[in-house]
Structure formats: C-alpha cells, structure tokens
C-alpha cells in the first residue's frame, strides 16, 4: 500500500522536494498531498525582483502551474494554511477545519519577511500602514506595483540583497528611490566595508540615493505615508515604504506543534526533525548543524538528500551543509560572494584590488594555501575559477594576482546571458550557443551530456569552461552533477587512483578484463585511455588487445582528414645528417608522397601516405618511429647549443638527444613535448613545453614543467635547478612517471601541474618527501627497458589486414555482385 506523504509549504523547497521524489519513482510509493499558503502553483521567488523591474511577467516565473499537480496525481491545497500538526495522531489540521493524515511529513514553510518594530509601520486593525509593503510574495509584489504606480517617492528599508533588488525594481514605477540601511555598508553580510562602499557608488550612479548607518525610527503620516524619520532626526519624504530588512525562518507552526526550534527547525543530516521519526523539514525554515540558508543552491541539495532518503534510493543519504557561494546581479551590478568575506585569523592571507572609479573590487582570503573566501564586485570574470578553487580546495597560483586577473590568459569572457545565440562557442566543431541552449532545453542537463550530444569542447578543449558556463546558465542553476566528470574514462565509474587500485587487486591485464570486472558494458570511448593505463601499469605483462587501440596506435601513424596517414621518422633533438635527408627525399619521391613538411617539433613529416603503403615506406626509410601520432613522449626540440652558438652556455643538443633516446615512445595520459635550450634566450621555446630545460650560466640547468603553446598558452613552472645533465635526465623521467601515474586521461601537463601545484611537485619529485622517488625512477626504467620500435611491425603484421585500407574504394578487395 502506498504511504501518505504530506508536504506543508508549496514554495521552492517544498515543490522541489516533491519533484525530486517523483524523479526517483516516488509517485508509486507515496500518495502526495501539498499544502500551500499562497493560492497559486509554485513559482520562482528569486524572479520576483524581475517582475517588479518589469523585465519578466508573472506567467514567466511559474515553475509548476496547477495542472502539473493534477498530472502527477498530487492533491494540492492552494491557499490553505496548516494551523497545527498532531504528531501523535499523525494528522495535519488546516485552518478551514479539514485534516489530512500522514505517514511521512515534510515541513517546507520557508521564511517570512522580517519587519522591525518601527512605530507607524502598522495601523491598528489594518495590518501594515497602507503605503508600507514587505517584499516576499507574489501578492506583495503585485500590491507594491499597483500602489507605486500612483506615487512618486519610495524609501526601501534594508540594504541587503533583497533591498537592493527592491530599490532597483521600484525605479521602474516611481521617480525617486532612497535606500536606508541600518549597517555601515551595503550587503554587510556578504561584503567587507570597502566592497560595500564600491557597490554603493555603483548603485548611486543608477540614481538611487543611499543612506547607510540609518536607523529608521518612525513611519510618518496618518492616513497616507508622508516620510520616514531616522535616529539622527533626519526626515526623508516619501509616499511608499518597502521593508526588506531580512528574513526569518517561518517556524511558528513547527514550534506550536512541539518540534525543536532555534533559529529554524532543527534537523539532522537526513533533514529529519530533532527527535522525530517521520517528520522532516527542508529549505529556509530548517536549521542544519546550526546554519540556516537563504540561498537556493543549499535548498536544492537538501531536497535531493531528502528525496534519496524518503524514496529509499539511498536511505543513508546525508546532507553535510553547504559551502555558500553566490553570484548575482544585484541592482544591475555583478556581485559574487564566496565563503568568508574578510580575514578571520591573524595568519589569513588577503589579496585585494580596488578600482572605485570603475566600480570594481576583488578580494580573496587564503588560509593554509587554500581559498576560503572571495568577493567580486563589478567584474566577476574570475568567478568560475574562484568557485572551483573554493569548492575543491585546489592549489592556488604562486602569483596571487592570478586569482583575481587573467594574466596573459585567454581573452575576456562574455557572460552567457550577453552572448548572441549564433555565437560560435566551440570553434573546432562549430557549435553555437543556441545549439547548446537547445540541447539543455531538450532535457540534457549535465555538462558532459551536452558535450557528448553536440561535440562542443571535444576538439582542442579550450572552450570547455565556456560550454560549462552556458549549460549552467541555460539550466537556470539546475545543472545536474555529472558524476562521470571525476572518472578516468567515461565507461568505468572510478577516478584514476581507485581504478588503478582495482586493476591491481583483481590483476586485470587487458582492457576487456577491466570492462568485464569493473565496467559492465564495453565502451568504445574508454578503450584508448584504459589501454594506455594498463600498458603503463603492467609493461611487458600487459595483454595487448589491438581493438583497444585508436587507429593511430594500430598502424603507428597519424590519420589525416582524407583517411591517409602521416609518417614522421625519429630525428633526435632535431639533428639530422645529409645521408638521412637524402634517404627521406628518395623515399618521398619513390612513393610519390604528396607533401613533405617540417614539423613544429623539428622533424620531417611525410603526409598523405596510404595505410597499405606504410610498411613499405618504413622499410625504405629504415629509421625508427618518431611517435608523432600517439598520446606519448613525442620529441625534444633543441637549439644549436654551445658547439656553434656564440651565446650558448650549455650543450643543449647533446642533452636533448640523450633525453629523447631514453624516453622515446613512452606512453602517458597525453602528449609529452619537450625542449632543451642552451641559454635563456630560449630559441627552443623550452618555457612553453610539457617539460623544458634551460641552460644557465655556471653550467647549471633549469627544469620547467607544465608549459604549453597550443590552444592553451602557459609558461611552465620552475621545478628545479640542477648541476648536471644526468640529473636533468633523472628528474625528467621522474616527472614524466609521476604524470603518467597521476594525470587524468587526456589531461596535459599544463592542467596537471597547476592541479597538483608546483610546490607539491617539488616536495615529491625533488625533495622526495613521500619517499617514492626511487619507485618512480624504477617504474620509468622498466618502461624504458620494455620499449620496442613499433615500425618493426612492418615485417609481420600483428593482426589480419592491419594495413589494409579502409579507403578509398578502388584498392579494396572487390567482391563480385551476382547479377
């Protein structure tokens, strides 16, 4: 038999909880009854300021209209208030005398406007003075608009988020608006005094008068409001007063019914009311671990936990509190407030930038190397990065200015709202903002899901951040967690460390064994990443299933747009000989290679070679593979060095050749492009390589890691300065092995190094704090020893038809068609 679920409160929390329950199949488990104080379906309260401002009409803010309740078999008592809960009889009593019994009860009564006890604010027997309004409900908003239309001057009491929104909205209806705020600066809960002052200037530029430190002591006017009086005696003339002095949890019903109430209804990690078995509270009315929340994101999290728990999807689901981070447009000004607003401890580190003339303020608070707070006013371009750093405790850039600014980074980001629909977001695959939004509206609400459908972000990957922001914006804050985001590959639900542990525990030595044991379904898109990982982990013991390889790795050449391949012979350190050049020229002529091109890695590329010709070309070249096709160690670019260059201070060519000889073809999570340059003039571009070595005067060598000069441009971080080429070779191997073991699939070093943090890398690789340096060196040495030139497969193909063409038509085996 179905259980009876009663939800008291039809606001954003109550309705969202019901939606989450239905999404988990709870419709079959519960008969659902919802009580709502307001005589409507469920609307987005956050949008009331848009209704007031006239940029949205009422219909646009409804989340679920009345028919939605009927369609889902929910009994909705709209406009009926619950007066009492009888916890012993498990019955709720409505104010019209009707009752409903429950097995499970959810209280989601939200909060109400806090109205300070100011003389004159109420009229005996009539509620509020007729010109005084709270700003909480749709009815409040309607009444305010209706009244303000015929009046001229408004005072808004309260300079927090809601008050600012009300002031901005009222400008749409009256000619003069004054904001009176009791504290010393605007939004004092979220902002420090300096940020508040800058916000104030911006708000004043919009034509709103602002009074801070203003205690309202009286509402003046007998029949109609004529003004407000402040504690210092000042009188501000006005004919409309809006009170937006904060909210308080609406817990009267719970308190009257005997539940534990402090600032809100006290709940545990399952949102269960203190000491109760079947009564829960969710949303702004709930107090969890001492916190009440007035933002929408924590409320969504609570609704999910409660739905998991109630439907039995995960009976032990636990809400552990939310880290408060918010980004809004407050009265037309962009504001983001994350975590703490200012330093709280003596050793907290604060980074501040203020530019009052432009209304820009940015600050970050750092504790023990992690971001614990950030504030942005007027320029919120860095908000995505800061929120991530805050949420995940990422390592922070050494140059703290990079927290607040993009220094030599990608160009200015436009906010998704301001972007025209036809803006091309993914320049590799030609995906527009409009396409992304349409995909979200079609029901796909994870970033990864949208990327899969549209292929946006699947090219060079630089637009991934923008794609994520558009998806989040289009989903209106309802973007769903993408559990797959942390997995090593999409087909096996585990992050890399867990996956590696499971592979070791079960002794999984082939890709098919991994799927069979850990993944369930075989997944084409996961095979290549798994093959790379298993090869790295098992070396000679790896069971090489050729179908797990991408075509490039099956035929040891890079597939081109027409289905032909490119051939790049090894040319260590970019140093060649006349004999080698002659040979390459002869091969190119003999096989009519359509294009011969110098590569960026100082080698020679023969382009347009058909697959079936590859073994012949390799044989005629008689040179080893340059690995210009794999997720592996590619090349070491060098400059002329000390033998010939009059500036060179170190023998870069000899060292480059030595590095390439040792680490040739070693596979990893991404390409590894290296360089050695003979002096800081950096002709070999070593600062922008995955690993770059720079000779400095005095016979020493600097090693930089995590550089890039592709779709993403980044100067590498200095890992170490060493005295000998041998140390360079050793540290190079150690860094590459650490990257192989800890890098996510396709995560290049320019992302990997900042993720781990250069300080941490120095600890592990140079100082050997974890005591794993010897293991890393040994693992790399084993991989080096197992290396075999793949072009030797020309002698005997590994699989039938390994080099048989898949294009073009004419050279395929002709199958006779019976007529």
């Amino acid at each position, binding site marked *: 038999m179905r259980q009876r679920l009663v939800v008291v409160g039809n606001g954003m929390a109550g309705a969202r909880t019901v939606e989450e329950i239905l999404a988990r199949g709870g419709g079959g488990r519960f008969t659902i009854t919802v009580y709502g104080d307001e005589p409507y379906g469920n609307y987005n309260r956050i949008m009331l300021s848009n209704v007031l401002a006239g940029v949205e009409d009422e219909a646009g803010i409804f989340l679920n209209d009345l028919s939605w309740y009927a369609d889902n078999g929910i009994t909705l008592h709209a406009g009926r208030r619950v007066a009492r809960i009888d916890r012993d009889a498990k019955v709720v009593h409505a104010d019209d005398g009707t009752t409903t019994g429950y097995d499970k009860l959810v209280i989601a009564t939200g909060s109400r406007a806090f109205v300070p006890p100011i003389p004159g604010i109420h009229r005996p027997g009539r509620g509020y003075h007729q010109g005084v309004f709270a700003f909480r409900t749709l009815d409040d908003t309607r009444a305010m608009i209706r009244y303000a239309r015929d009046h001229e001057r408004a005072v808004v009491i309260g300079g927090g988020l809601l008050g600012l929104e009300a002031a901005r909205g009222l400008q749409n209806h009256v000619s003069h608006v004054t904001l009176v705020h009791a504290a010393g600066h605007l939004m004092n809960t979220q902002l420090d005094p300096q940020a508040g002052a800058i916000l104030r200037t911006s708000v004043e530029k919009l034509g709103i008068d602002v009074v801070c430190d203003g205690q309202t002591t009286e509402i003046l006017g007998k029949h109609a409001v004529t003004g407000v009086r402040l504690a210092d005696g000042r009188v501000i003339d006005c004919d409309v007063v809006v009170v937006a002095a904060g909210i308080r949890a609406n817990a009267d019903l719970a308190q009257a019914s005997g539940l534990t109430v402090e600032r809100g209804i006290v709940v545990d990690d399952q949102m269960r009311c203190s000491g109760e078995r079947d009564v829960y509270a969710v949303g702004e009315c709930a107090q969890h671990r001492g916190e009440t929340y007035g933002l929408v994101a924590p409320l969504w999290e609570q609704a999910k936990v409660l739905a998991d728990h109630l439907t039995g999807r995960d009976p032990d689901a636990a809400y552990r509190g939310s880290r408060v981070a918010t980004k809004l447009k407050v009265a037309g000004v962009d504001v983001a407030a994350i975590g703490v607003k200012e330093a709280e401890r003596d050793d907290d580190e604060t980074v501040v930038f203020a530019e009052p003339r432009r209304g820009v303020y940015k600050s970050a608070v750092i504790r023990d190397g992690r971001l614990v707070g950030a504030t942005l006013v007027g320029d919120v371009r860095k908000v995505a990065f800061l929120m991530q750093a805050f949420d995940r405790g990422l390592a922070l850039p050494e140059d703290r200015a990079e927290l607040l600014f993009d220094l030599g980074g990608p160009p200015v980001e436009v906010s998704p709202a301001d972007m025209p629909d036809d803006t091309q977001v993914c320049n590799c695959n030609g995906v527009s903002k409009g396409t992304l939004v349409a995909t979200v509206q079609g029901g796909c609400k994870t970033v990864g899901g949208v990327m899969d459908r549209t292929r946006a972000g699947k090219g060079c990957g630089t637009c991934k951040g923008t794609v994520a922001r558009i998806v989040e914006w289009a989903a209106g804050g309802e973007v769903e967690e993408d559990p797959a985001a942390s997995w090593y590959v999409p087909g096996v639900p585990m992050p890399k460390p867990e996956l590696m542990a499971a592979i070791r525990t079960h002794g999984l030595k082939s890709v098919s064994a991994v799927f069979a044991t850990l993944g369930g379904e075989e997944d084409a898109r996961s095979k290549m990443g798994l093959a790379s990982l298993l090869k790295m982990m098992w070396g000679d013991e790896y069971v090489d299933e050729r179908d797990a390889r991408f075509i490039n790795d099956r035929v040891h050449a890079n597939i081109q747009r027409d289905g032909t391949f490119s051939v790049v012979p090894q040319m260590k350190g970019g140093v060649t000989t006349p004999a080698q050049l002659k040979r390459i020229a002869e091969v190119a002529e003999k096989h009519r290679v359509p294009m011969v091109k110098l590569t960026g890695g100082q080698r020679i590329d023969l382009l347009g070679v058909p697959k079936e010709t590859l073994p012949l070309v390799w044989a005629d070249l008689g040179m080893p593979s340059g690995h210009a096709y794999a997720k592996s160690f590619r090349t070491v670019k060098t400059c002329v060095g000390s033998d010939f260059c009059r500036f060179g201070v170190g023998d870069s060519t000899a060292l480059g050749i030595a590095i390439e000889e040792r680490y040739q073809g070693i596979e990893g999570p991404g390409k590894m492009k290296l360089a050695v340059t003979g002096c800081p003039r950096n002709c070999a571009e070593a600062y922008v390589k995955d690993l770059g070595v720079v000779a400095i005067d005095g016979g020493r060598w600097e090693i930089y890691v995590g550089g890039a000069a592709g779709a993403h441009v980044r100067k590498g971080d200095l890992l170490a300065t060493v005295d000998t080429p041998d140390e360079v070779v050793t540290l190079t191997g150690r860094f590459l092995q650490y990257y192989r073991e800890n890098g996510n699939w396709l995560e290049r070093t320019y992302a990997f190094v900042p993720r781990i943090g250069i300080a941490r890398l120095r600890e592990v690789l140079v100082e050997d704090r974890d005591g794993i340096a010897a293991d890393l060196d040994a693992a790399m040495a084993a991989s080096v020893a197992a290396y075999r030139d793949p072009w030797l497969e020309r002698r005997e193909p590994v699989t039938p038809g390994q080099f*048989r063409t*898949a294009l073009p038509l004419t050279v395929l085996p002709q199958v006779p068609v019976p007529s």
Partner: protein
Amino acid sequence: MIRLGNLEDIPVGEGRAYAVGDEMVAVFRLRDGTVRAVSAVCPHRGGPLADGQIDNRVVVCPLHLNAFDLRTGCSTSEQPPLTVYAVHVDADHQILLGE
C-alpha cells in the same frame, strides 16, 4: 546474398572495409560475437569508419569522434544515419551480406 570473406579476416573488436559493387561496407566483429555491417563512410566528413573503435553498441569515427549505433545506423552525435546492411556468418565462418 554476397560472400565477403572469412570471419577470421577481421580481428575481434575491429572492423574492415569491403567494396560491394559501388558501395563501401564496413563490417565489424563485436566482442560479444555479433557481426554488424554499415556504410563505411562517415556522413560528417567522409571518415573511414572501418578504422573506428567500437564497443557492443556503437562505432566511433576516427576523424571527429562522431558515434553511430551499429544496429540502427543512427548517430548518437547528431549526424545523419548510416545505412545498415543485414549480415551473418555461416557454418564455414563465411561472412554473408544480405537477407
């Protein structure tokens, strides 16, 4: 019914292309033992699908990673569909195309 060749010509989990009259057919030998046949040219930019990676459901084009359901030919990345051919293997391990 058209005989394409031996099943053993196609390594497990891979595909090979065959020219049948004027048509290009990519035949895949799935790891679950099934054999599937679809048109061999990716409708997006002409990529060689027989060089693509597969699982028991889809083939992924090697050029731009568009994916196609091997059973229905439908793209899972918003591309036009592939032609699907009936194919089976007889008792002598011969791959036969057609009903």
